[in-house]
């Protein structure tokens, strides 16, 4: 730009200079010529007068200094010429100025010399005797004048060019400096040419726009990383070359790596055949899925190809921890198997007896016993089904009647209900404590106490003792059921709350349990946001403590 400005200024300066010089010279030349024409005319008039007064001989004494005077007869013969020999000159009748003078009394013409370097002006006048007096002077042409002036003109030109180039460079520099020192960080704070202000305004506007877009982008990125950081699922993003672009902490944990792997090939981090297979399927068909076992946990891996404009630009890998899901799945399967088994056993016994009666094999006297058996098996079945319904109700978590209930009152009622069973098994029951009111579902709380006491009676020794205590605290109520029974082996303690789990694998009918009691207790307690604690020693007994928040 500096160069451009410099060149423009220089060209303009030189052009103006040359033009001025030319114009001035032509104007001066013209005015010079006009003056000389005037002089010529005056001289002609004087000489004419002189000749008319003193004849041709007057001419001969005349000193004309550069002017050429010629006297020509009306026939065109040269009579006198002050610069050449008159006798040797040709007939002048054909000359333009002579012809004009003959005709109209006076004539003039201009002729160039053969080399064009000189120009001759002729003025002619007819005298009274009919002869023609002609006066002329020769002048250098413009071209030759110029040539004569070449050296000074050139000197002036060169000097002018040098001067103007110095000036031009200064001006260009000054113009540019103010552009160069523009503060583009703060476009509006500049004090510069007015012509630039629309541009600066625009820059400032765009700057603000870029700034806001950048902050928007940053916000988006932060949001994204925040989401992926706190995600439980692992997320790995790869580019089209399989290089890690982003990996969240969950995925870092699964693949046992850290953030330093970003920018490296994913295969450096994980090269198992499952992953490679899933990524290959993802690359081919768009989606790949696989399962992975790592450090005792199970993961499900989903690899998806990311397409943009029908071109694969990368892969997204999602890692789900499915350990719990798999465990639940297994429990569900076990539950189904257990339920069918538990339902089948009494039914088979009922069927067997019914068949005996149907075929008439049973003796009439045995009939009442068979009937009793069928009834008791059916009753067992009913209890089982009721328990299952109960559990599924708890699972469903439907609308239950919540009210303020007194645990002590419930415990009293429950113990009364169980008194007969306890007496049968020669177990003593005792209740201690004070009224404790909690907000809960009466039926479920009663179920909790019933099941706990029922177990405490069933798995007790003869002459055993079951102590129930209800205590009330500021923000919690505690039910404790303590027995002097057989106790639960330590390896079973964790599992007794599972459905159908029984310490006694023979599923014996002696105790008549369904294996669902403690499961119901657990669910009902959880529903009340309570906690269960179990302390048990084989041969000494078990203490189960239920803490319910108020």
């Amino acid at each position: 730009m500096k160069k451009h400005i410099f060149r423009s200024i220089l060209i303009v300066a030189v052009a103006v200079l040359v033009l001025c010089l030319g114009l001035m010279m032509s104007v001066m030349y013209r005015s010079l010529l006009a003056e000389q024409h005037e002089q010529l005319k005056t001289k002609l008039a004087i000489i004419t007068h002189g000749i008319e007064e003193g004849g041709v001989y007057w001419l001969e004494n005349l000193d004309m200094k550069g002017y050429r005077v010629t006297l020509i007869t009306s026939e065109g013969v040269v009579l006198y010429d002050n610069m050449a020999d008159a006798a040797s000159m040709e007939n002048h009748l054909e000359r333009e100025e002579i012809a004009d003078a003959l005709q109209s009394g006076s004539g003039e013409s201009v002729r160039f010399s053969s080399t064009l370097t000189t120009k001759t002006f002729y003025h002619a006048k007819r005298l009274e005797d009919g002869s023609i007096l002609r006066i002329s002077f020769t002048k250098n042409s413009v071209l030759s004048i110029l040539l004569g002036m070449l050296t000074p003109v050139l000197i002036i030109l060169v000097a002018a060019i040098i001067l103007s180039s110095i000036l031009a460079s200064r001006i260009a520099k000054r113009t540019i400096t103010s552009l160069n020192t523009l503060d583009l960080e703060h476009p509006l704070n500049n004090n510069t040419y007015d012509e630039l202000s629309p541009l600066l305004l625009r820059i400032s506007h765009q700057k603000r726009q870029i700034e806001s877009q950048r902050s928007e982008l940053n916000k988006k990125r932060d949001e994204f990383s925040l989401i992926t950081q706190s995600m439980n699922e692992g997320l790995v993003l790869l580019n089209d070359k399989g290089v890690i672009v982003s990996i969240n902490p969950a995925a870092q944990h699964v693949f046992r790596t850290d953030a330093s792997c970003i920018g490296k090939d994913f295969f450096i981090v994980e090269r198992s055949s499952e992953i490679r297979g899933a990524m290959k399927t993802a690359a081919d068909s768009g989606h790949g899925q696989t399962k992975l076992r790592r450090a005792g946990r199970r993961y499900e891996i989903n690899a998806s190809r990311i397409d943009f404009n029908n071109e694969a630009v990368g892969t997204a890998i999602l890692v789900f921890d499915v350990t719990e899901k798999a465990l639940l799945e297994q429990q569900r399967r076990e539950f189904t198997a257990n339920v069918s088994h538990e339902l089948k056993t009494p039914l088979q016994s009922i069927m067997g007896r019914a068949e005996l009666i149907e075929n008439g094999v049973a003796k009439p006297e045995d009939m009442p016993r068979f009937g009793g058996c069928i009834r008791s098996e059916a009753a067992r079945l009913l209890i089982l089904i009721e328990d299952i319904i109960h559990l599924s109700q708890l699972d469903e978590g439907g609308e239950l009647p919540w009210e303020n209930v007194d645990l002590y009152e419930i415990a009293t009622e429950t113990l009364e209900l169980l008194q007969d069973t306890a007496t049968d098994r020669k177990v003593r029951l005792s209740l201690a404590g004070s009224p404790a009111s909690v907000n809960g579902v009466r039926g479920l709380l009663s179920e909790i106490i019933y099941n706990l006491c029922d177990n405490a009676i069933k798995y007790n020794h003869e002459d055993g003792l079951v102590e129930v205590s209800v205590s009330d605290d500021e923000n919690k109520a505690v039910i404790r059921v303590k027995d002097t029974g057989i106790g639960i082996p330590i390896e079973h303690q964790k599992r007794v709350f599972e459905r159908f789990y029984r310490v006694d694998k023979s599923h014996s009918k002696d105790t008549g349990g369904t294996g669902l009691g403690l499961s119901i207790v657990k669910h009902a307690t959880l529903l009340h946001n309570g906690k269960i604690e179990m302390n048990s020693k084989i041969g000494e007994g078990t203490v189960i403590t239920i803490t319910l928040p108020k």
Partner: protein
Amino acid sequence: MRNRFDEQLAILNRELIEMGALCEEVISMAANALLTGDTELARKVKPLGGEIDQKERTIEAMCLKLLLQQQPVARDLRQISAALKMITDMERIGDQAEDISEIIGFLNGRTGRDCAPIGEMATATIKMVTESVDAFVKRDMELADAVVEYDDVVDELFDQVKTSLIGMIAKHPQDGEYALDLLMIAKYFERIGDHATNIAEWVLFSVTGLHRRENVT
């Protein structure tokens, strides 16, 4: 130009990792088949071995193309030449795993559990292969050194296997053929350990430019 070269080197690296992973897979499959007597699993080793051979040819062609077209020097040249050497060892590992699985077919349903050290040897060899591939993947000098050192453990285990097999033949002469098969398998494991050592040494070479036990003169 350099960019494209780097891209090709990255692809080469990726292929090598895949080949290494295939080796790990094939050896652990063979070892599993040996310890469980699962001939079905042993049969699956062969196609994987074929895959490894295929990979070797692919990588070989890739390396030669890179050498010809890019005329690499210094580190790049080391990386490519080390790759060329490494694939030979990996391919051998694949072949020997195939051989092991073939022998498993002749064991008549017997497993390698009758000779305790062979199970240990299998585990040790798998560890060596995994770690040598790991050392390559992560350019981990220390791990590579550890692999080279660990070869002595495998050699020691091989001696134990021999002693145990000699005892077996002495006690049950009718088990001679079985013992010889196990000896072959143990020898293959020992060879696989050597190949893993070689891989680790080539990893050291590709990074430092010095082969093991070689000094700048």
